């Protein structure tokens, strides 16, 4: 079942010097529980699409249709943890802003994902991977219907990145969330997503949409070993305009 329909989305940015068409003619539907990745050349309007979806930006044209009132959880590139708050206080930030009282879910998340004993720790004493997990729990705390992930692992080194993407994927699947992830890493997209949208360069329009049907669909690290992984990798690599 589609929970989100985007029709002919267009976004133009205006500055003093010029106007800039970031996204044009962007349409797609998101199914419930689906994980969609958006890939494309860096600097194209990938992040714009996420900002529009969660209401930080207004579209210049086009429609976004929800089948019910949807709550979005936005996870940005850097973890953006507040240095002056401990892990627990960081996690309940969204709840406090929305003036919700129920902190049970956050406590459960912290316990399930191995952060409960660090709840009084300040972010500066956490590793990059742990910070990213705290950031995800902060996003999940308000129990959003759809997660928007904006290159969530790009600040991490390669090893941590694999480990954290594995973690995050498991958490998202276990909590049964739909997710849209923007990334420029083809491998990451194939290993995590059910569908991949390839965008063109400036303005971003849809070039192709791929269903990812791996032989044994499992978790990201296992998926990387799948026989069809390299097939999809080649396909996408050729599809993305890469001018060095």
């Amino acid at each position, binding site marked *: 079942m589609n929970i989100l329909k985007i029709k002919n989305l267009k976004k133009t940015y205006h500055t003093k010097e010029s106007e800039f068409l970031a996204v044009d003619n962007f349409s797609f539907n998101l199914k419930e529980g689906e994980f969609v990745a958006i890939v494309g050349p860096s600097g194209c309007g990938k992040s714009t699409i996420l900002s529009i979806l969660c209401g930080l930006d207004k579209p210049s044209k086009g429609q976004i249709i929800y089948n019910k009132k949807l709550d979005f959880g936005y996870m940005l590139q850097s973890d953006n943890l507040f240095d*002056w708050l401990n892990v627990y206080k960081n996690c309940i930030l969204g709840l406090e802003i929305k003036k919700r009282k129920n902190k049970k879910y956050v406590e459960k998340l912290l316990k399930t994902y191995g952060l409960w004993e660090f709840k009084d720790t300040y972010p500066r004493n956490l590793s990059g991977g742990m910070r990213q997990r705290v950031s995800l729990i902060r996003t999940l705390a308000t129990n959003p219907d759809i997660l928007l992930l904006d290159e969530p692992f790009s600040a991490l080194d390669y090893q941590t990145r694999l480990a954290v993407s594995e973690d995050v994927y498991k958490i998202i699947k276990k909590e049964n969330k739909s997710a849209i992830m923007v990334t420029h890493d083809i491998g990451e997209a194939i290993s995590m997503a059910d569908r991949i949208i390839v965008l063109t360069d400036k303005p971003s329009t849809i070039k192709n949409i791929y269903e990812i049907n791996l032989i044994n669909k499992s978790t990201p690290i296992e998926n990387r070993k799948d026989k069809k992984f390299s097939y999809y990798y080649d396909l996408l690599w050729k599809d993305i305009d890469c001018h060095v």
Partner: protein
Amino acid sequence: MSKEHQKYLKKRKIIDILIRIIQIIIVLIIIAIWQYAADKNYINTFISSSPKNILKTIISLYKNKTLFSHIWITLYEVIISFTIGEIIGITTAAFLWRFNFIYKILDPYLTILNSMPKVSLGPIIIILAGASTKSIIIMALFISVIITTINTHQAFKETDQNKIRLMQSFKATKSQIFFKLILPSNYNNLINTAKVNIGLVFIGVTMGEFLVSKAGIGYLIMYGSQVFDLNLVMTGIILLITLAALMHYIITFIEKNIEFKT
């Protein structure tokens, strides 16, 4: 704790103590040279005074029971001006952050007011507010508030945009963004601005006391120069230095010991 680490800590502690001792020795040497030069008549004590004379002046001020009243008056004016200045400055900065359009309108006026020598307003302030403590505080506020506002607003404006977007993604209101993000994330900037502010308030209060000439350390200096009692002038300067150092340490102490909690 390993032996090596203990050694390292000990070494660091010794260096810290050494630095303190040298700092104190430097002051003592300066005082000693000053006194020596005065005793040997290398310098004219009528103009440059001497440590002994300054001490005598302080004792005589203490004996006729005016020392602490002058210090207290100056301190009182500084504390009041500093507090009001911080409140007005931070509130105005918050207001300008909230209403960027108004900030853009006021920007050139703030810049001009900031570069104007505020002391020139002195005579007008005295005519309007009378030769009183009120005038001195207004004088100090004129000197400190504008720069506090400009610096604080600048810091507010430079808050990490990604963190603001994060707050917006939770549908935070402007006041939630301000109290949960802008204010706590700028704690260090606020402290630094306060340090600048305390210095400016001292300038303002001293200038005010020069002009009003009724009481306070600024008055002592002014009075001393008028009756050509340079001992009194030097005493006033030393007292001001001591007070300024004291206030600076109080702020540093607050900075080190109070973490911002929301």
